[in-house]
């Protein structure tokens, strides 16, 4: 979108480094294979035949936090699970993003009691919240595309 428009086809594409890196990051985001509760089943549906999340370069769920850059918190986070969740988040290499899938992860949902953390944002920073109990696979995919949009807008100075 720069010099090649003026000089004709030179066989090269010029773009800003930011855009190139962000494009790369959005198109091969590796989510962590990490299901907590009901939402995990819908997350599996989103990966399976009918919804097919691999269209977004996300077919590869990594079981290890060391290899993933997106954490989808799919389900209710209990007080016993919260430290584990934080440790998993800390183990992920930068850059990393978090999607809070479903009402329970976003705000506690229908549970208002001693056992459930009222929103996973008390434990890890959340980029995108997806509403629903559980959200439909389409809603999760929409959440992921919203995250992609956010990532595309990141600046070099945010990377550090």
């Amino acid at each position, binding site marked *: 979108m720069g010099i090649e428009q003026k000089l004709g086809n030179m066989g090269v594409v010029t773009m800003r480094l930011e855009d190139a890196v962000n494009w790369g990051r959005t198109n091969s985001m590796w989510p*962590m*294979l*990490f*299901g*907590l*509760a*009901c939402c*995990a*089943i*819908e997350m*599996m*549906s989103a990966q*399976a*035949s*009918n919804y097919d999340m691999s269209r977004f370069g996300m077919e590869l*769920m990594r*079981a290890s*936090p060391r290899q993933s850059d997106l954490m989808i918190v799919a*389900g*209710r986070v*209990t*007080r*016993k*699970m*919260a*430290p*584990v969740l*934080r*440790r*998993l988040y800390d183990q992920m290499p930068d850059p990393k993003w978090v999607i809070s899938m479903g009402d329970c992860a976003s705000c506690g949902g*229908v*549970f*208002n*009691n*001693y*056992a*459930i*953390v009222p929103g996973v944002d*008390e*434990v890890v920073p959340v980029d995108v919240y997806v509403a629903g*109990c*559980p959200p*439909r696979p389409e809603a999760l995919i929409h959440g992921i595309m919203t995250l992609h949009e956010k990532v595309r807008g990141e600046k070099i100075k945010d990377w550090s």
Partner: protein
Amino acid sequence: MVEQTEVTLDELRHLVSERALTGETVLLNMGPQHPSTHGVLRLLLELDGETVVNCIPDIGFLHTGIEKNMEAKTYEKAAVMTDRLDYLNTSGNNLVYCLAIEKLVELDVPPRAQAVRVILAELQRIASHLVWLGTHALDLAAMSVFLYCFREREMIMDILEMCGGQRMMSTYFRPGGLWRDVPAEFEDAVRQFLRVFPRRVDEYEALLTHNPLFLERTRHIGVLSKEDALRWGVTGPALRASGVPHDLRKAMPYSGYEQYDFEVPTHTEGDTYVRYLLRVEEMRQSVRIVQQALDKLPYGPVRSNNRKFVPPPRSELGHSMEAVIHHFKLWTEGFSAPAGGVYVAVESPRGELGVYLEGNGSPKPHRVYWRTPSFANLQVLPLIAKGHLVADLVALIGTIDIVLGDTDR
């Protein structure tokens, strides 16, 4: 809040063998984040090389406090919590809770509602078994079965969504019947499913049943004897695969299961392979039940018209003062149940799912206790895992078919 307690070897002394203390065997943590633990199960393994010496399940990572939360809600509103217990068997959870309330307050259920309940509970059983089959095969490195299974599961999800407006947590069964009548397209959608599904089961079987890799991984793995199964309170497919033909749909029929003709598949080997065969056969039997229930689906009301427990339909509110009063009363205060306890159990895809409901004369339950099959079935995991390889442990977690929401509640 974010702090993790470290456990010393001394505290584990009573759980592991002597060899662990001398360093001869290795203690390894598996989970709560692990691709094959089907949720947030943590296993503490004591390994001799690759052989499992001891396996200690640590549960509670999904403890939601549902039982306590239900005590704070009126009987009808607490039904919403039941979906979230065993999230693969949402209709079945609604069913057992509604049956308990109906028994406690002596509420009648119209025949049409009973038949629709049976249809949806059986479809839910198929959906649950499909998730089980897909993930179990995935654990054993057969990726494509997962994609096949979820294709058919979507058909069932569409039917449930059509009825209750939600894919998973529909809370479609209410005390006294159903939330509303099934839509006009329901029958066609179910018939379409019944038409294609038996052939699809053949497809799954073609992928797995005679597959040498699958046989190698499942045969003679995790043998559960009949005596052990009975001693540990195992129910459901795991019990039937060990040679006990116990199925609550036959043993204590509810919702009119006695009118349907179906078989309870039973095997005697008790290993992982026959548990697979048994669940596949159960899917076929569920198709038979749905077919029969749909063929003689009666017409009529879908909810009891006992206005002391069931709110009047919206259409009556415009011209009946009495209906307005009942509506107001039921949605503000709720109905009261007499003091006393009832226990009702149904056959969930995982086994005996029971609820003990105790009333105290107020509109809220005094105590709700869930007897969940996954909790009881998980107990045998250390028993059947001993002496197997770590790779087989993955198959064993799959084969007992636990849902952590059901285990931890």
